[in-house]
């Protein structure tokens, strides 16, 4: 029996080596290269990362969240990506356990900050928890509406106007089933900047 196996092993050497090389060329080089060529021709914007530019300068990606700390902007979720959060070269969740003291203290701090900046609002869960990627571009509509008064005050805008800006950015679940109601924070903040500069020019 062992001589049968030895003979088969010898017979398997050439196909094993050759097929490794052939499949490496087909699946490891030709396939991704062909997909890249077609993707770059047919969907260049998406294929290159859905980048948003402003006067030729890349200011971010439509799909990737970025850090907002100023009172003048809507804030995204806390982020565990990289040491300062929203590091798009080091995606990560916190991986904290459900009954972790560290998680408890972090959320308690975030709840306190939230109560200070948005008094009276119930705490939106997404705004005090880290996302899975650390790059979540969205927050819930409740999380956005709870920040309206703060942003309006910081920009000297009417709260109704800021509220309307948020409403215009709310996306609904597909077919009422897939996904959650959400707001893209970068898109909302860009709309906010536009509205603010339009108002400044109008005066």
């Amino acid at each position, binding site marked *: 029996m062992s001589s049968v196996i030895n003979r088969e092993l010898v017979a398997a050497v050439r196909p094993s080596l050759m097929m490794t090389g052939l499949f490496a060329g087909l699946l490891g080089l030709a396939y991704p290269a062909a997909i890249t060529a077609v993707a770059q021709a047919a969907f260049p914007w998406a*294929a290159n*990362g859905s980048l948003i530019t402003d006067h030729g300068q890349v200011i971010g*990606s439509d799909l990737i969240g970025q850090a907002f700390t100023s009172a003048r902007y809507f804030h995204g979720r806390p982020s565990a990506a990289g040491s300062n959060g929203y*590091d798009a*070269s080091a995606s990560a969740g916190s991986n904290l356990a459900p009954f*972790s003291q560290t998680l408890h203290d972090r959320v308690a701090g975030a709840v306190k900050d939230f109560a200070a900046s948005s008094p009276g609002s119930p705490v939106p869960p997404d705004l005090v928890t880290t996302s899975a*990627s650390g790059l979540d571009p969205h927050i819930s509509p409740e999380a956005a509406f709870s920040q309206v008064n703060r942003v309006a005050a910081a920009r000297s805008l009417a709260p109704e106007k800021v509220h309307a800006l948020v409403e215009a950015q709310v996306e609904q679940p597909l077919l009422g*089933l897939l*996904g959650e109601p959400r707001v893209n924070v970068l898109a909302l903040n860009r709309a906010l900047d536009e509205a603010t500069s339009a108002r400044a020019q109008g005066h």
Partner: protein
Amino acid sequence: MTSATLASGFGLILVFTALVALMAKPFGLWLFAVYEGRTTPLHRVLGPVERAFYRVAGINPNQEQDWRQYAVHLMLFQVVTVIFTYAVLRLQGSLPMNPRGLAGLSPDGAMNTAIAFVTNTNWQWYAGETVLSNLSQMLGLTIHNFLSAATGIAVAFALFRGFARAETRHLGNFWADLTRVTLYVLLPACIVYALYLVASGVPQTFASLIDAKTLEGAHQAIVVGPVASQEAIKMLGTNGGGFYNANSAHPFENPTALVDFVQMLSIFALGAGLTYTFGKAVGNTRQGWAILWAMLLLFVAGASFAWWREAAGNPMLHHLGVMGANMEGKEVRFGAAASALFAAVTTAASCGAVNAMHDSFTALGGLVPLFNMQLGEIVIGGVGSGIYGFLLFAVLAVFLAGLMVGRTPEYVGKKVEAREVKLAVLAIVILPLCILGLTAVAVVLPAGLAGPLAKGPHGFSEILYAFTSATANNGSAFAGLTAGTPFYNGLLGVAMWLGRFLVVIPVLAIAGSLASRKHTPAGPGSFPTTGGLWIGLLVATILIVGGLTFLPSLALGPVADHLTGAAGLLY
């Protein structure tokens, strides 16, 4: 959490499950055509490629192999491809397509990753975007996403032939099965799928790094690359190895809720299809449907339980005034329901992709992915490995039924004898042996105890999850565990290798001995292997033989975590 929200989550689970049932026949027929070696429309384009491969490699696709030959060719190919990927990862620093100048991987890290991808596990101790060049992602890893999936299906085909054929030693030709599955199923499906992903926002470029200046004036370095081509086969081949650390939670891998839904369907597509292929192969599609119903029953139970717990949320956060479902480690665009469903799907299959961080699930919500893997990933399961793993339980179930009612154990026209039962038990027992044995080793050694991020019972869960995921060839993690150490790279590498091939080889041996038997036509003494009684017996066998072994370990981990946490104890 309102009851309407809860209900809509259950609605999502049921709609998803119905679609999986609908996919089984078309995918099953496609795979059956390849199983039989029929000429398909795709042969016009890819037939010349297939013939060229055989010519260069000196393969005669019509030369049938017995189970030993099939196993020897398969194993040598695995060894050669492990060495190939090990070399690519070690030499990364000197190879092209590495604009960020990333260094080669450490010996233990490269070996762990090579084994992880060859065994269809795709365990990732590293963060893809910080450690791997575009060339390593493509040439080192993407090829295995195809080949490990095709190898799994090839083994399933050999086992199908064992049931379908009679009085022969021949189980087909490994190289022909491998090549045909790759060329006529995986590659064309991935070309379409990858382009759909790009159109939906998944990057596909040979560029690597983009520097953005954010609205607040900070710099944000955004890593891009050939993501879509890897993402497509990562899901369809139930591999699960992400381009990015955050895997399918990363907006570039999984940009929308619709893509997320398609990703879940694609994890199950081929595995569900293979149940139908099995029915066709043994000449009775009701045999295949019985398997699929048993799988879906177990699946819906697990997914619903996970969603119920995630919807209930985390009592610790409720005390802080943060009400509602558990959103720590979850993305807003998917929400808690699609995250719980994804966790059930990815561990029922041997995928291991994640769209949420399982480590931050509620204690009992996180029990579901763990338990799904401990059942051996036979609820749909990995491509190929799901159905052959399930058929081991079917062999065991007819044997048990035979013992109980005094009938001759038979399954799909073949008598099941002592040899097959012994081999099936050998393949089934490797799972608890590796998972519980290696976990026990890790929790008594300092190098093992250095791993977990969490303290208390959840720290034990992190270690248990790692060895479960590795042995079951899943690849998902309670990722708080620091696994990139020589200790974990080595031990988890062993677990992955044994968990894959100490199942594959007994399965091929069973195929060989079944093929040599005569067909036994079903008579009045045969136990019916379709219908409700059989499905109930299958589910019971899986839960009792596969599941019961792990209950003590689950009590020490997730259950203790839940009870102490509910009592207000923090770690």
